[in-house]
C-alpha cells in the first residue's frame, strides 16, 4: 500500500513539475513575437525515423537530438518587447546560480550573449541560453533561444544553423574558445 501511495505521489509530482512554466513562456502567445517551440516528443520521434544511413555524422547528429528536452526561440522586432525580453533574460540569469556566461560576441552592431548550465562533463551542458540584440537595425531586434536537455556543445551549432538561428556561426567556435 505504501508503495502505491509512493508511486502515485511520484507520478503527480512529476506531472506538476512538467507543467511548470519557464520564464519565457509568456512570449509564446504574444503578438509581435515570433515563437518556435520544439518538444522532447519531436526529438524522440525524429530519432525513431530510421534514415537508413551509415553516415556516422548523421548518427551523431540524431544521437544529440534524441537527448534534447526542448528548444524555444522567440524573436521580436518591436522595441518595447525587445526591452522586455532583455530584462526577463537578465532577471532569469540573476535568479539562477548555475548559469554561467559562455561567451559574448559583439559583431556588426549585434550583441550576442551565451549562457550555459553545466552538464555531465565539459563537452555537455544541460541548458544553453542565447540572447541576441541588434541595436543597429531600424526596429530593435531581439532573439531569445533556450535549449534544455543533454546538449553536446560540439554538435549544437549544426542544429542551430539548421534552425536558422542567428548566432550559429559564433557557436561553431565555441569548443575552440573553451
Amino acid at each position, binding site marked *: 500500500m505504501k508503495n502505491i501511495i509512493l508511486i502515485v505521489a511520484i507520478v503527480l509530482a512529476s*506531472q506538476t513539475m512538467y507543467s511548470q512554466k519557464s520564464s519565457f513562456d509568456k512570449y509564446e502567445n504574444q503578438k509581435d513575437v515570433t515563437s518556435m517551440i520544439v518538444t522532447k516528443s519531436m526529438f524522440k520521434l525524429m530519432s525513431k525515423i530510421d534514415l537508413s544511413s551509415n553516415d556516422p555524422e548523421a548518427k551523431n547528429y540524431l544521437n544529440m537530438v534524441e537527448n534534447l528536452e526542448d528548444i524555444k526561440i522567440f524573436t521580436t522586432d518591436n522595441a518595447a518587447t525587445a526591452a522586455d525580453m532583455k530584462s526577463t533574460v537578465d532577471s532569469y540569469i540573476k535568479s539562477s546560480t548555475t548559469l554561467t556566461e559562455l561567451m559574448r560576441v559583439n559583431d556588426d552592431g549585434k550583441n550576442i550573449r551565451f549562457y550555459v548550465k553545466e552538464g555531465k562533463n565539459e563537452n555537455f551542458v544541460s541548458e544553453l541560453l542565447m540572447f541576441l540584440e541588434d541595436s543597429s537595425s531600424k526596429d530593435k531586434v531581439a532573439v531569445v533561444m533556450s535549449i534544455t536537455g543533454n546538449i553536446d556543445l560540439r554538435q549544437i551549432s549544426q542544429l542551430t544553423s539548421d534552425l536558422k538561428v542567428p548566432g550559429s556561426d559564433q557557436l561553431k567556435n565555441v569548443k575552440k574558445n573553451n
Partner: protein
Amino acid sequence: MKAAIKFSAVILLLIAVVGCNNDTSLQRYYVDKQKDDAFITLDLPSSLLSKDGNTLNETQKEALKSIKKLNFLALQNKEENKDIYEVEKEKVQTILSDEKYKTLMKFGSNDMGATLKFTGEEDAIDELIVFASDESKGFTLIRVLGDDMDPSQIIQLMQGMNEQNFDFSFLKNIETALN
C-alpha cells in the same frame, strides 16, 4: 489490505472514466461541427486515397494500412462567422491543451499560429493533429487517425505519394469549398 485494493480499484476506475471522457472530446467536437453549416468538414477514409494498381512497396502498403482516415475541419474568419470565430477557436485550443495531446512543435507569429500534436507513442502514433490559424483567413484542424503509425514507415510512404498512387481530388474539393 482488502480495503486498499478496493480503494485503488476505485481510483483506477475513476482515471479510466475521466480518460475516456477526454478521449472523445476532439472527436466529438469534429462530429458536432459536421452538422454545422458554418464549418467546412471533410472525412476521408484512407482506403479512398490510394488508387488501384499503385506501385507502393510492402512497407509503404503497411504504413498506409496503419492510417485509418483523415479529418479536415475549417472555419473561415468571415463577416458571417465573426460572432463564433473566436469562441470556436478557443474551444479547439482548450481541447488541445489536454495533456494527452502531446506537443511536437509550435509556431506563432503575429496573426498566425500552428501547432503540431499527437497521441500515442513516438514510434506508434494513434493520432496526428495539425491546428493552424491565420486571422486574415480562419483556422483549420487536420487530424490523421490511425493505429500505431510508425513515423519511419510514414516517411517512406510520403516518398511514394504521387498522382499515380494516390487520388488527390479531395484537395480540389477543399479548394472549392474555401473559395
